[in-house]
């Protein structure tokens, strides 16, 4: 708890710096990553992030120490080479994109690991810090590091904001972009540069292995919540910042704990929550919607049975009789009786279930939709009368008042369905 207060009150200026840094990094990478996710280029980000490792090592060798300028430049060049190679191979060979990306990722990363191991054997005391580039260590960032990584993040955010319209066009409809004379190839080149930069800014805090997650997961998680590009970008940035800060906190509290994996754990948590509970596309939401719908269908069926009893001259039905009608749905019917009683469509008179006035109206509506649909199938679509019941059983719960009106007009307000049963309306009320 003490740690928590100490960390989140930012008493320690170095913590404040790290949090500012990770916030900028989060916005920058989520921003770029969302576009590459929409562009279906998620794997490329993974390839680039693994490919920067040899560049980091080369920068270290040339500088002889952990100088961020050398390391960032080395990483950027290696990432650039990987990006260039992947598009060159795609253009000039018949290899598929995924095999190209897999090859580049493993070749570059393997080469980087070889260099890293060789460096570790060299006995340079500065080498210890180099390991943090694999899984990231946000706490170990120096102020000078922050200036460089933060500055680069700001550049990325700025360029993306200025060119928002152009990048939107590049992802959605590049052919149209070319047709109106936009330099789409140039815009794509600029985007690739930003993508490599977004990887490079994360190597210290998140590490090369997991940086792709910080690029792609925020956008993917945010996509569950919104259908608009602007809110998608903002939400993705928010997920990314929160995970970044939480991950940094963990690696601050627990010594020797790398930051990258924890950031990814929190990001995945956000993604999982989004997948489960977001409205429209979340699975829990869809499950509840479906459950509610099924409950409504059971209520409609009970109303129909009561109405049919009314047609046969019975004022109501014994509860036991109702259960007999639906032998495998006792629980559901029990629930329907409670529900319908609550809304005042039925009442229970000494074990006999009777429709109220409003209940009769509602039951008539369901029966009417059922019979109208049967007639429509039979008359307009020429389907035999003994084939129309199943479909009507489903449509009676779905048809809207507008569609009902259309059906009535189309069929010219019919009085009988294909089975010669009356289509109930207010004028032939049985009450």
């Amino acid at each position, binding site marked *: 708890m003490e740690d928590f207060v100490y960390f989140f009150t930012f008493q320690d200026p170095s913590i404040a710096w790290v949090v500012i840094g990770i916030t900028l990094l989060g916005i920058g990478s989520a921003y770029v990553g969302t576009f590459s996710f929409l562009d279906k280029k998620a794997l490329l980000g993974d390839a680039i992030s693994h490919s920067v490792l040899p560049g980091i090592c080369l920068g270290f060798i040339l500088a002889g120490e952990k100088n961020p300028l050398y390391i960032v430049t080395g990483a950027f060049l290696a990432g650039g080479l990987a990006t260039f190679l992947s598009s060159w191979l795609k253009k000039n060979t018949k290899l598929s994109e995924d095999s190209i990306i897999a090859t580049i990722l493993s070749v570059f990363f393997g080469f980087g690991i070889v260099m890293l191991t060789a460096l570790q054997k060299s006995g340079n005391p500065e080498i210890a810090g180099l390991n943090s580039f694999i899984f990231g260590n946000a706490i170990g960032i120096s102020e000078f590091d922050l200036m460089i990584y933060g500055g680069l993040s700001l550049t990325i955010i700025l360029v993306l904001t200025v060119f928002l319209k152009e990048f939107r066009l590049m992802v959605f409809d590049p052919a149209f972009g070319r*047709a109106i004379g936009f330099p789409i190839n140039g815009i794509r080149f600029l985007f690739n540069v930003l993508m490599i930069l977004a990887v490079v800014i994360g190597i210290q805090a998140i590490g090369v292995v997991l940086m792709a997650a910080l690029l792609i997961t925020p956008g993917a998680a945010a996509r569950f919540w919104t259908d608009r590009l602007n809110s998608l970008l903002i939400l993705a940035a928010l997920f990314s910042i929160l995970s970044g800060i939480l991950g940094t906190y963990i690696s601050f509290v627990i010594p020797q704990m790398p930051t990258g994996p924890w950031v990814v754990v929190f990001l995945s948590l956000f993604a999982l929550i989004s997948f489960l509970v977001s409205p429209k596309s979340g699975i829990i939401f869809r499950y509840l919607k479906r459950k509610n719908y099924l409950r409504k269908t059971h209520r409609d069926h009970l109303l129909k049975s009561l109405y049919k009893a009314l047609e046969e001259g019975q004022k109501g039905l014994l509860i036991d009789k109702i259960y007999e009608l639906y032998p495998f749905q006792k629980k559901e019917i029990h629930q329907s009786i409670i529900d319908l009683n609550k809304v005042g469509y039925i009442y229970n008179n000494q074990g006999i279930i009777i429709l109220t006035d409003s209940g009769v109206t509602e039951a008539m509506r369901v029966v009417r939709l059922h019979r109208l649909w049967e007639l429509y199938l039979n008359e307009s679509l020429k389907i035999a009368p003994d084939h129309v019941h199943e479909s009507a059983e489903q449509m009676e719960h779905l048809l809207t008042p507008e569609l009902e009106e259309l059906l009535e007009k189309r069929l010219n307000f019919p009085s009988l369905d294909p089975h010669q049963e009356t289509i109930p309306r207010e004028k032939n009320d049985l009450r």
Partner: protein
Amino acid sequence: MVTQIENPVLEIHDLTVSYDQTPVLWNVDFSLPAGKLIGILGPNGAGKSTLIKAIMGLIPPTSGYVKIFDKPINDVRARISYVPQRESVDWNFPASVLDVVLMGTYGKLGLFKRPGRKEKELAMECLEQVGMTGFVNRQISELSGGQQQRVFIARALAQQADLYLMDEPFAGVDMATETAIFQLLRDMASSGKTVLVVHHDIHSAMNFFDWVIMLNLHLVASGPKSEVMTEELLRKTYGGKLNLLTKVTDLISKKEFNPLKS
């Protein structure tokens, strides 16, 4: 049968286009008049879309050239509007109908500038012309095929061009929409715009177009509808197999290098 025109809106000179190294259009040469509704007809794989893309400069020609308003395409892009095939984009992209129609104003805005109120008003007018005002804020994935097509046409209208190139705007569109869109295109043509439409249905082509281009790897005919819609030319376009041309194409695509490249 090719009718050439003095002072054409669009002039295509001896155009050959290849994908990778497989030629898909052979020596196409025609010119088009202004203010006409023009149909490009031909069977599947005849190179209709390729022709449109080559005109827009989206595919570099192997040989030949295209001139629009007597200038190379890059000088007159602001006056040309392009409707790509509906399937060419991902309709799950997070955008509203308005967002997409606003893209039609990007060309005149140029780089950096964002669409403002003036552009939004224009977009709304264009949506009204295609009868989609009620869908302004709808997510594009929720639209039917016909509605998506109308959004694309509204986007093209927002370009305020003089020449319109449309790639299969009637694919997957219901009858009512087809008639409405054709009426709109007809009005555009009578106000002096030139509208070029890739189309697959010969029957409706008979009714709608003023001028027809028939294509099947090579140019079969280009001229006023009354002159080119003959049984003989239609059979040439759709019926007979182009055995020789197809064999040459196979020969070229099997080479280890591109023999047409100079």
